[in-house]
């Protein structure tokens, strides 16, 4: 990127322009968190259950957030820090956002990351990346409180089918995401297997000796085991 583009895309006015989008995400989460926490005890949850939820959610969130760091730095090179900050916090998905930047560049016929990036590219990227995520916000705004109806329609009117459909669909999604990491077979496949074996052993052990820390830390421990196994393999192969 040129010095001029860097100054433009990282200017104070861009930070101010991006602030409202991030602020509404935080504000919505704050309102829902406060209401949920206040009403949790009123409807019969214990304070321990609430604390356990908060703790486990925080622990489980940290790892995937760290993954986003290196990809976010790439996005910052194309969109500047302020807009990358907005994009990763507003219907953010790192893979989606990098695709969005690519589609914007392709749309106006320039090479992403090159000196061709200018104010016109930034405006195009701002519109394309924001516009592409509107579908999710609209679906959620329209149907979040009517998902039972949506699911019933998809289940052909049989409410007994709804949880079965949900389970099947979830298995399908995670099988597809996992298979993408297995084929073609590379080092990351060992991470998939290591994580899968670790959670199997933890789950079987937890069924016999239920422990609270397993439920709170289980996902994170298995992720770390998978990462560790892959890193050791790369060290042994001289990759790092």
């Amino acid at each position, binding site marked *: 990127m040129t010095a001029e583009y860097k100054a*433009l895309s990282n200017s104070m*006015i861009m930070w101010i322009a991006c602030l*409202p*989008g991030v602020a509404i995400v935080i504000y*919505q*989460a704050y309102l829902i*968190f406060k*209401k*949920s926490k206040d009403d*949790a005890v*009123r*409807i*019969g949850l214990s304070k321990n*259950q609430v604390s*356990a*939820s*908060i703790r486990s959610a925080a622990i489980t969130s940290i790892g*995937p957030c760290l993954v*986003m*760091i290196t990809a976010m*730095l790439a996005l*910052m090179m194309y969109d500047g820090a302020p807009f990358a*900050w*907005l994009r*990763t916090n*507003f*219907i953010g*998905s790192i893979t989606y956002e990098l695709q969005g930047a690519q*589609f914007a560049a392709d*749309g*106006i016929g320039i090479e992403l990351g090159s000196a061709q990036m200018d*104010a016109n590219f930034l*405006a195009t990227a*701002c519109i*394309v990346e*924001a516009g*592409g995520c509107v579908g999710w*916000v609209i*679906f959620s705004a329209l149907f*979040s409180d009517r998902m039972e109806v*949506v699911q019933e329609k998809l289940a052909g009117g049989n409410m*007994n*089918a709804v949880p*079965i459909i949900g*389970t*099947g*669909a979830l298995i*399908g*999604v995670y*099988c597809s*995401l*996992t298979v993408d990491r297995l*084929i073609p077979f590379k080092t990351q496949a060992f991470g998939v297997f290591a994580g*899968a074996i670790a959670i199997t052993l933890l789950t079987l052990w937890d069924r016999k000796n239920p422990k609270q820390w397993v439920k709170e830390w289980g*996902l994170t421990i298995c*992720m770390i085991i*998978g990462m*560790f196994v*892959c890193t050791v393999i790369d060290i042994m192969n001289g990759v*790092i």
Partner: protein
Amino acid sequence: MNNEQQNIYKNEYLPYIVRVGKITSWLSLPLIFIPALVVVIFFGARPDAGGVITGLVGLCSAMLAWYIVDPVTLYPILHIPGMYMTYLCGNSKEIRAPAATAALSAAGVEAGTEHGTIVAGISIAISIFISVGTMTLVAILGNAILAVLPQTVLHALNYLLPSLFGTMCMQRILLDPKSSLIILPISIALKFLSMNGFFKFLPFGGGYAQILLCVIAGVIVARIVHKDKLKA
């Protein structure tokens, strides 16, 4: 839950969540286009309409199936409060669903119940505070962070998502092994078909076909395997 608690949940909690969720979601739509407006007004940008439309058509077509598949499949875990927050903040499968899953397990409540709904609300809000905080730090500190982290740690981060997906996939398998042992080979077959360009004839290149067909296969298989529960 007793009648009073049911009353609080149905007549106080849910209406509040729906009101907040709808208002903030609709309000957010114009806000995310402010940066584009600023670049045009203050930096004199004149984006080419054809370029914008080409970019939008490309991106939206790639994401089209996801606008519906993603919320429908994750709703059982996220439920109403989680849906509004997740489809405003994002990272549904990577951060929100795992955070909600871990919280439901830690609190010992089932997804989709009244207690599970409130736990989902609490946990996803927490995950949003963490992710927004992290991304804010990264945006401000940028490259300084990369310079501090050891190379081995940075390298290991490349393997976090595969490990996470393998873990979550196995959790699903352990919950329903009969369906999973049929769906998994189907997913592998669909992957091979996708890799060999079998779906390229579909509109917009068919990049969405693999995951969409995996979801459809998952639904059909689960209905067949659990057909006795459908009649109950």
